[in-house]
């Protein structure tokens, strides 16, 4: 790995860049104290520069700069329970640019860890953000990963988060992607996981598309082991001329594997577009997969209930949609 300092132009003022990133991070919902607290595992990356990295006992962070981003290796030692959530901050402040994050997560046997990630592109006019994550949650380990995005107000971001996960026997992976404030731009979310015996994978995407935003969400789970369980959940709202397409796919291969696709897409206004395609494939006669999808306007009974408490139709719909995306 090249020494970070040697490849950077001398004019870069790290502390100022860090402060600006932290400010944007806070605006997107991040907790700035977490990035400064040495008892909390954290990583802050602006563009292709690692501005801060703090490992804690049992957690190893290894970073490597690339021309357009960083490679990150996150490893948790077997049997270690990381008490506080690890905070990750990725961002790009200029209006234009590319950030590519290639990450490898390796959660050792029986370990337990949770991550709170924020990705922020507050001024984006033409920003491209590629996330390529490979996750291994080893036997009986547990990983919770929550990622919140903020892409500014100008629909100027193209974001492609791609995850390939392996959930080993008895392990748990809970993954949530959230982009509900500001605009989306273009989002192409692609999540795939393979779940072994008695493993559990729950994946959820919550996105609010506005203006001309384009949303594509693909969640795909392969339940290979006996008694493996999977939940592919999506909550999408689209307004104005925004479009969303959701593909929720589960393959039940293991005996007694159980999977559920749960998709709700709310469309507000006549120009928006929403589609959902649940796909269930069963390869074992004791496996059982189910799906529910509700696409359309906000639920009438919910709206009328809130209107009966004095909220207008618009106010009621706002409350219902923000609850759904919470």
């Amino acid at each position: 790995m090249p020494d970070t300092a040697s490849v950077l132009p001398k004019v870069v003022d790290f502390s100022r860049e860090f402060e600006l990133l932290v400010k944007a991070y806070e605006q997107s919902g991040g907790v700035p104290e977490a990035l400064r607290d040495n008892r909390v595992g954290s990583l802050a990356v602006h563009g292709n520069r690692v501005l801060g990295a703090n490992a804690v006992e049992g957690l190893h962070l290894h970073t490597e700069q690339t021309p357009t981003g960083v490679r990150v290796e996150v490893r948790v030692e077997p049997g270690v329970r990381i008490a506080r959530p690890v905070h990750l901050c990725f961002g790009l402040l200029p209006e234009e640019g590319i950030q590519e994050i290639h990450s490898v997560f390796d959660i050792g046997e029986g370990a337990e860890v949770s991550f709170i990630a924020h990705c922020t592109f507050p001024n984006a006019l033409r920003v491209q953000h590629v996330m390529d994550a490979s996750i291994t949650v080893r036997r009986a380990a547990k990983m919770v990963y929550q990622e919140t995005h903020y892409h500014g107000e100008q629909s100027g971001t193209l974001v492609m988060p791609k995850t390939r996960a392996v959930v080993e026997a008895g392990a748990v992976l809970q993954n949530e992607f959230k982009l509900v404030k500001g605009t989306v731009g273009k989002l192409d979310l692609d999540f795939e996981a393979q779940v072994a015996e008695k493993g559990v994978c729950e994946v959820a995407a919550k996105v609010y598309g506005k203006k001309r935003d384009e949303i594509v969400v693909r969640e795909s789970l392969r339940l290979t082991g006996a008694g493996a369980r999977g939940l592919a959940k999506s909550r999408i709202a689209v307004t104005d001329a925004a479009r969303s397409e959701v593909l929720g796919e589960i393959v039940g291969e293991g005996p007694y594997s159980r999977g559920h696709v749960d998709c709700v897409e709310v469309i507000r206004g006549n120009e928006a577009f929403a589609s959902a395609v649940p796909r269930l494939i069963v390869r074992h006669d004791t496996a059982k997969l189910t799906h529910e999808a509700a696409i359309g306007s906000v639920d009438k009974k919910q709206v009328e209930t809130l209107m009966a408490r004095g909220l207008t139709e618009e106010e009621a719909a706002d409350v219902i949609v923000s609850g759904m995306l919470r």
Partner: protein
Amino acid sequence: MRLCLENLDVAVNGHAILRSVNLTVRKGEIHSILGVNGTGKSSLAYTIMGLEGYRVTSGRILFEGEDITSLPVWERARRGITLAWQEPARFEGLTVRQYLALSRRSAANGLPPEEALLRVGLEPRRYLDRTVDQSLSGGERKRVELASVLAMMPKLVILDEPDSGIDALSIGFITDAIRTFARFGASVLLITHQEEVASVADRSSTMCNGTILKTGDPAEVARFFRLHCRACDHVNEPDEEVSPNA
């Protein structure tokens, strides 16, 4: 008079559901509605609340002397009418605390959330941060609904079977809550199948086939109901088709 229904005819999907309904509810009065399944009790509740699909084809609804027949739901609510559903809606991501706060928003003298919950027998510490979604049991959800109406404390409360799904030991909380409304000067239109609950009423009406058969003293109406309605083989079927533009 707080509520006055005058010769109300209501159609749903082109079917006449309510026919020549005449009913008055006084200030601070608890008025119970009896009737076998399918007589139109819920339809009456929805019509007073102004829900979509309940079309008043003739007659009018007066609230505090003003004609509200064509007002939207939320305007009726802001004037002081609310409804607790027989099967209340569930909300993802909305906590009991937030739900009660919303109910209280447009209310001048609603009860604070903690007190509203205590009055329906739910411990605030255990329930305020719960979500009003599928994770609440049927009975819990019904109680939260009643609490949200206490938090609003409107002038007219329509309760559609507030006792259904409530365990026998807790029925007292429901009847107490109903009396609380009256003490605050609110009127209650109480739909129920249970005599114990109906016994809190000041007046009572019995419905049959979309209309009100008899109104009067609760004991008398209950006797009438037992004598005539329980034994009656009258089929509660929607009446003849009415034209959509009628």
